[in-house]
């Protein structure tokens, strides 16, 4: 849509010409240019710093989350694979001895056998045959321990 006003008189054209000339009368101050460039540069550095900080925070958060998750899994794994000790072991020996009506030595040997068998099943990469073999070897070993204990 083109709407333009034709100068309706020579007076209006002269007035427009004079206003046009007055447009060059006002200029920016000399310090505006360095001020603008410095402000833009500062803003750029500020954005860069904020970006770096954001990246560092994301990286730190990921590290903490990974660490917490890993340590919790390791703790669970360590708990489940460690040999029962102390009061827990004593309780297990008494329970096993009572259940199977055996002496504490034999109950202890059986507990060790079970634990080793369970460990064998958890070995990464071990197929079911390997696990069975390992469980059998653990059972043999515990029987030997039992015999030694009975002799004593």
């Amino acid at each position, binding site marked *: *849509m*083109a*709407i*333009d*006003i034709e100068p309706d008189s*020579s*007076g*209006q054209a*002269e*007035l*427009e010409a*004079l*206003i*046009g*000339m*007055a*447009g*060059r*009368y*006002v*200029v*920016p*101050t000399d310090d*505006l*240019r360095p*001020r*603008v*460039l410095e*402000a*833009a*540069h500062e*803003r*750029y550095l500020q*954005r860069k710093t904020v970006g770096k900080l954001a990246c560092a925070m994301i990286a730190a958060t990921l590290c903490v989350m990974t660490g917490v998750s890993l340590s919790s899994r390791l703790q669970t794994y360590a708990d489940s694979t460690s040999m029962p000790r102390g009061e827990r072991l004593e309780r297990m020996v008494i329970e096993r001895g009572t259940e199977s009506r055996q002496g504490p030595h034999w109950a202890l040997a059986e507990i060790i056998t079970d634990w080793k068998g369970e460990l064998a099943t958890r070995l990464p990469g071990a197929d079911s045959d390997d696990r069975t073999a390992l469980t059998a070897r653990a059972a043999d070993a515990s029987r030997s321990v039992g015999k030694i204990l009975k002799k004593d």
Partner: protein
Amino acid sequence: MDDSLDFSQRVRGCAQRISESGPAALGGLYDLTAVRLVRYSVTITRNQHDAEDAVQATLVRVADSPRTLDRAEQPWAYLLRMVRNESLVILRRKRRWTSLLSLSDLLTRRGVDEVEHEETYREIWTALRTLPTEQSEVVVLKIWEAMTFAQIADVLDVAPATAASRYRYALDKLARKLGPLPEVAQQRSEVGHGD
């Protein structure tokens, strides 16, 4: 090609250079547009210091995201709109009590051959300051930026007919305020002698 379209392409070129080289290339856009942006902003803020703050804020924004200006359909009109918005924000924030008849805040420049015109320029700037902002900015965009009413309407977000009528009112008021300026009288007398 239309002057303002050509100028728009140059503004787009500057925005592209800022996109490629970062804020170090802002000097090019400043050199191309600062004088025009400041004088436009002065007509809104009526104070040179505030106008320069508005221009600075605008150009820093452009340096921050030059692609916005580069992708604009009319980069020059877009830049003027940005300055206008910043000027209005500053105007709202700092309500200054300035005398409309004083030009003491303005930094002026006159060439050696323009000394005799200085009084006329001062009268014109003073008269412009007495106009309502919506009228004075149309005069600035029409005469100093050589924009069509359609382009002015785009900058001001009004209908082209509204821009045209504001311009007509503004010129009527300016003609009454300025009266027979010495230079106009001189030009008329020259025309009279020519006859």
